[in-house]
């Protein structure tokens, strides 16, 4: 082995096994996998109508906040409008009540759904905080919108399961 081989081998031996990415990639991964909650996917036939309805409602809320911000002439208000704790607390309470009403799901499944919703809500709050200092960041806005949709889909699917069970019971 000559000197340059030796140098290469030594450098190889010093390579770290782990390198941390510059950004936390988890929020993006969580958003993508929340679109299709695998464990409950087989149980739930996604109700397109219900999903669409909730998505439209969430979208309208989002757009409403955007318009409110534009009307006030302060783009930063988009972030602060939906970013206060009371708003998120209300959303969390609504989500929790929706999941708890899905009584045909086992308590363990409801707990998993709630945990996933809390992760999504936590991501939303963090992005919202980030938007307060960078309100026009299009990637942040897109990510936040995506999270709203994911939350809506998850809630819609939960409601759909309950509705299907009720229908079966009525037959």
């Amino acid at each position: 082995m000559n000197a340059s081989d030796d140098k290469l081998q030594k450098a190889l031996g010093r390579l770290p096994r782990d390198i941390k990415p510059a950004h936390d990639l988890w929020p993006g991964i969580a958003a993508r996998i929340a679109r299709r909650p695998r464990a409950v996917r087989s149980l739930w036939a996604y109700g397109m109508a219900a999903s669409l309805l909730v998505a439209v409602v969430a979208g309208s809320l989002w757009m409403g906040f955007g318009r409110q911000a534009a009307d006030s002439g302060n783009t930063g208000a988009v972030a602060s409008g939906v970013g206060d704790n009371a708003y998120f607390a209300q959303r969390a309470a609504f989500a929790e009540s929706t999941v708890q009403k899905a009584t045909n799901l086992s308590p363990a499944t409801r707990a998993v759904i709630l945990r996933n919703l809390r992760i999504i809500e936590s991501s939303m709050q963090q992005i919202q905080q980030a938007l307060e200092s960078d309100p026009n960041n299009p990637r942040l806005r897109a990510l936040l919108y995506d999270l709203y949709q994911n939350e809506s889909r998850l809630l819609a699917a939960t409601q759909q399961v309950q509705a299907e069970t009720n229908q079966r019971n009525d037959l």
Partner: protein
Amino acid sequence: MQTATAMELPDSIPQAAGDDSALSLRAREGDMAAFEQLYRRYCGRVYAVCLRLAGNPTLAEESTQDAFVKAWESLGKFRGDSSFGTWVHRIAVNTVLERRRTQLRQAAWVTVKDDEILESVPAGESDPGHGLDLEECIASLPPAARMVFVLFDVEGHSHEEIAALTGLAVGTSKAHLHRARQLLRARLEA
């Protein structure tokens, strides 16, 4: 995205509880918090291999995300014969290689002979200069040579395994490795 670096784990997520198999079992049941713990445990290792194979932080981040999403979607098939870390690492390697194959197809480079790819970036073309560490030198290698070098010298695969993973002929893999080592020695000596 600057802001993401400031993100912290949500309070509701228990820290480092349970071993890999317990966590992967919980993740299979749909527990995203358990899967996040597995992600936190292995993201450094997965990102490292993606970065070295892709030679680009943006592509490496995308591939890391893709790998964990694929892992989540395939958890039902994970039998625990190997550790979760080994399994997700393999998914990551395949993800980067698949991405490259797609790029090559899209660029219609499939018609280019291996030897031409081998020679596509001459040794001095992207001379990184003095004081560069091995990571930077690896990143500056021609793509095919970089992949073979990383798979063989860093990840410990054989040429036969690399051939199966990449679709290259064994002889071509050896040629790429020879070329990569030559370039790296020259750059480390510079």
